[in-house]
């Protein structure tokens, strides 16, 4: 009753990589949130003598993060799309360990 179906310790290299890419997809929004919350630390125009961040810099930063996130999400999707069909068929735990 308590025993769960054993999860394999070692995966084939390919499926190992796929799982790490899935991890990347999961992490991506957190990275995005972190980067987009950075502006809360920026100096504002009513700061004490500190020169405030200029608008043009702010635009470049926010949109830059946006483009990076989209590119990451798109390429991850592309990677997983091409390989996801075999991902299900891969027999776990019988192939060799990734080196």
């Amino acid at each position, binding site marked *: *009753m308590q*025993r*769960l*179906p054993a999860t394999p310790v070692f995966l084939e290299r390919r499926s190992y990589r796929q799982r790490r890419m*899935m991890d990347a*997809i*999961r992490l*991506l*929004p*957190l990275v*995005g*949130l972190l980067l*987009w*919350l950075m*502006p*809360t*630390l*920026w*100096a*504002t*125009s*009513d700061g004490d003598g500190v020169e*405030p*961040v*200029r*608008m*043009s810099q*702010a*635009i470049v930063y*926010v*949109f830059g993060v*946006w*483009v990076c*996130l*989209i590119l990451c*999400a*798109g390429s991850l*999707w592309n990677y997983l*799309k091409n390989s996801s069909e075999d991902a299900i068929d891969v027999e776990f735990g019988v192939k060799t360990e990734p080196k």
Partner: protein
Amino acid sequence: MASINLLIVVCLTYVAFLFLVAFAAERAAARGRGNWLRSPLVYTLSLSIYCTAWTFYGAVGYAARSGMEFITIYLGPSLVMIGWWWFLRKLVRVGRTQRVTSVADLISSRYGKSNVLAIVVTIMAVIGVTPYIALQLQSVTLSLSIFSDPTGTTDGGMNLVSAGFWVALGLSLFTVLFGTRNLNANERHNGVVIAIAVEAVVKLVALLAVGIFVVWGVAGGISEMMVRIDNSDIGQWQVDGSRWTALTVLSGAAFLCLPRMFQVLVVENDDERHLHIASWAFPIYLMMMSLFVVPIAVVGLDLLPENSNPDLFVLTVPLSQGQGGLAILSFLGGFSSATSMVIVATLALSTMVSNHVVMPIWLSFQGHGATVSGDVRNVVIFARRVSILVIIALGYLYYRVSGGSGALAAIGLISFIGVAQFLPAMIGGIFWRGATRVGALTGLLVGFAIWTYTSLLPSFGADIVLSSSLLEQGPFGVEWLRPQALFGIKGIDPTVHAVLWSLMLNTSGFIFGSLVSFPKPLERLQGAQFVNVFANSGHAHGWSGSAAQSEDLMVMAQRILGGAEAQKLFRREAQIQGHDRYLPEPTPDFLQRVEREMSASVGAATAHAMISQLVGGASVSVQDLMAVADESAQMLEYSNQLEAKSSELLDTARQLRDVNAKLTQISVQKDAFLSQISHELRTPMTSIRSMSWRNSSAVTR
């Protein structure tokens, strides 16, 4: 300069074009040639109803007033889409397996198909979204007025109120025509979806065109534009950190909870893979929509007189430069964003109202509603059409009463906070099996009350609903209960304050209520099925079917699903059950399937009520519950049993083999023994016999 008459002609032509597109799409889908209607591109574009007239006009106004803060409204949804794996994946799967028709249906279905919850969510959604619909009407009429008076300072002599009326009428006509054509929400509204996809393209193109004109036509290039931005009034970073964070979170939450977003994200979703593509494609759309907002705002602040309305810079900037054509394009963009939002929002709301408010009332009036004759389909469709008209009328009324005042962004934000109150019940329902109906109800009501008190009522201004003394000193002079400074915490921005307290207390109420209450059997079953949606897409609960008769079921299903559809379902089921008769046995499996099909038309709670009327109310017995309560555990147990059995078999087989080998060996030994013994015995026996024979013959002789 474009005259108002020309504008109206363009507008009508555009609307006629949309009708045509929607009609063609419906035709193509009806003939089975509608595959292209369901491409990932159309799905992504249909998500763009998130960008309403608030985006189109309001974002520029917002940027002109408070700089970069406007962008948080797009950052939240981008993060939600990019993080599809966390939440949307599960939401879409749940929506598809449970055949959910709306956000109210989702919540009610999760918490034991509770009708009370469905009604509460429906009412909250209607109250939350009505100002938003009013906002769209306001923006369309405002933009019309600008063409008769480009400075935007007066009403321009045009009858705005009647313009608003005609817009509202046209929109309700479109929604009724294409939104209530088919009843089953899972059959999807091809015409509407394709129309909003077209509108999505129009508004993007329009905003990009104005942006490109402003950057390259007025400012003279990117670097010049940047210099101009830095030298303008909004050239320095002036965003309040708490607002930035709160608005990002809020917009992400609203993206999931807005009834219209739920409609296109989950209900109209045709293929889960489309979601994967939209996860990066939709952020691109959002990014392009916000790309030129700051430049337009800056140029507008530069070129136009002090008192002009920044919400209309998208129109007034091209007009002031003598670009009549561009202004008309931009007007069409704004018109598109307003109309697509109103259409989908009313569609989603009318589904909720008809399924969760009208149908239960109608059923209870009918007494034994499910067994009387008559076509329920007509009732549902009629209810839906009336709801559409009522909702748009409410929006129009709100617009008339509020007098079209206030900045667009402020109204939109209040609406966002209202619908974001669904979030705890939604997330909790999908990820936490311990969430109960009482908890969800507590959370929703607390959140809604705080939203009303801290955000909605104060928004009307002092001395309209809440007296200024109440706003200043709190009710009965209790400082701690001041609407915009609860618990004596002053100095927070009102929006942040409302988001913080409403969501925090909502979540606390939800968790506390869930912890202290005990769920009913059906709730626990539904909870297990929602939370473990990926582990098993199997059956949640059993109807004890013996009481229901197949004929009754057939009659009822026909009235809701339509004759052909119901007959197909029953015939297929009979085949699955393996007999030639037309009517299948009312097995629990079959009853559940019928209920699920029906819930796609009338909502989970109503479908459940109708079936339970036929079956006799006993939906879940304790035995059923015991049997299926913990499906995963049960499956685990089953597989363990199988495993144990197979290893037992292996053992037996091995023992058999051993015994067999031993037997063979013994048999060989036996043979050897016998052959040896026979030799050993026969020889002396023979000699003894011959000896005794000789002796005996010697004796006789």
